[in-house]
């Protein structure tokens, strides 16, 4: 292979004047994490609401939830980001569109909202199947005790359902981290974009991508380990994750 390896490249200054190449990658990692966490908050809130809607006895409610999930699940994330970024400002009334276009940090906000809504459909599906997997008797027992539907969800169904879906939600969060890289297409300079920039400046392709790979792996490991502690913390003895 006639490729010239140069692992010291990370400590050389990057031409964009912000420090070394390593600093460049780390700032990308930081933006990846920030975007992912903000998007995750949106995903959790919207996803929980829609997930509950999907399980309500009301036909209309579950229909709305169904349409929401189908809408966000049946388009590639990349296309959704384009809709938010390029199309939305044009189809809104002029003044709003202008405001959107002039907003500083537009790639970050677009990525956060677009990714958050995209992931919310998946969170909703996880939560729905979590609620669906609870024994039917739970809901009946709560109702028999005189709890309202809202109380039944708040005190009986959701506390159990969230525990059940904790492992799949962990992997959905990791998907959110990974999917942040799709926002490279609307100009978000996150980790993958920084690795790509480093490759273009320095021509050290494989060092740049190896570093990005290692950083993504680290994020995965840290999240997985942290979530294992959380799972242990909320486990209920003798039930599901509690052993």
């Amino acid at each position, binding site marked *: 292979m006639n490729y010239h390896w140069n692992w010291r490249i990370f400590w050389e200054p990057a031409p964009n004047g912000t420090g070394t190449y390593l600093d460049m990658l780390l700032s990308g990692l930081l933006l990846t994490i920030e975007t992912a966490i903000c998007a995750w908050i949106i995903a959790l809130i919207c996803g929980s609401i829609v997930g509950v809607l999907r399980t309500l006895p009301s036909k209309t409610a579950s229909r709305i939830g169904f349409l929401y999930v189908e*809408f966000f699940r049946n*388009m590639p994330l990349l296309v959704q980001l384009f809709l938010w970024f390029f199309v939305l400002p044009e189809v809104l009334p002029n003044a709003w569109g202008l405001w959107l276009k002039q907003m500083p940090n537009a790639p970050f906000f677009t990525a956060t909202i677009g990714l958050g809504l995209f992931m919310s459909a998946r969170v909703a599906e996880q939560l729905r199947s979590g609620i669906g997997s609870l024994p039917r008797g739970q809901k009946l027992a709560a109702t028999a005790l005189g709890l309202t539907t809202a109380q039944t969800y708040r005190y009986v169904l959701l506390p159990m359902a969230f525990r059940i879906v904790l492992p799949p939600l962990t992997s959905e969060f990791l998907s959110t981290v990974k*999917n942040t890289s799709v926002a490279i297409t609307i100009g978000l300079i996150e980790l*993958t974009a920084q690795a790509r920039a480093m490759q273009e400046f320095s021509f050290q392709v494989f060092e740049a991508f190896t570093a990005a790979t290692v950083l993504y792996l680290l994020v*995965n490991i840290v999240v997985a380990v942290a979530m294992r502690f959380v799972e242990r913390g909320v486990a209920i003895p003798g039930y599901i994750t509690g052993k």
Partner: protein
Amino acid sequence: MFANFDFDVIRRSLSYLFLDGMTFTLTLTGLATVGALVFGTLLALMRLSGSKPLVWFAGIYVDLMRSLPLVLVIFWFYFLVPYIGQWLTGSSRPMRVGAFTSSLVTFIIFEAAYFSEIMRAGIQSISKGQPAAAQALGLTYSQTMRYVVLPQAFRNMLPVLLTQTIVLFQDTSLVYVLSIPDFLGAASKVAQRDGRLVEMYLFAAVVYFAISCIASFGVRRLQARIAFVH
């Protein structure tokens, strides 16, 4: 509100969008699915083989791929495939690899990790008595897998495999980052040439949405039918 939009641009570029762009997207989806399913099944068999090195290799491979964003993997292989080609053919300089081949290799290698997890779950869902019965009849390990275990695993997992194929179909849009004219890439080219971003991206969204919707509707029908038979 759509007054100053020109939706005729879609009609004018239809043949480019579908004959070039969509053909690329669907061919890539189809071939990558077959390749990833075959490779993924091999990985699943390795992981369940009980041989330490194979279990390790498959486990690390699958975990690694599943930890990385597809965009990064696309970049990796865009630069790596020419070198792999050089190594395989023993030539003196990196091989020139076309956009399609490079994308196909990337998607097979990446998606195989996801397909292998599905096939692994499928194989594990079959009761231990089935391979025991096959072996009691004198079938070898490979015959047991080929005629008894894998057909059942495949059938049980068919809805999940098809759903993953829809995900793969949507994921192929990410080759956009290499400026490859798949369906989205083609739409984007027209959009930028004619300055018609809104029209083209809306149209692309509708097309992806329609295809995915119809496909996932089909999967749900299939699932209901399977549930009915059992």
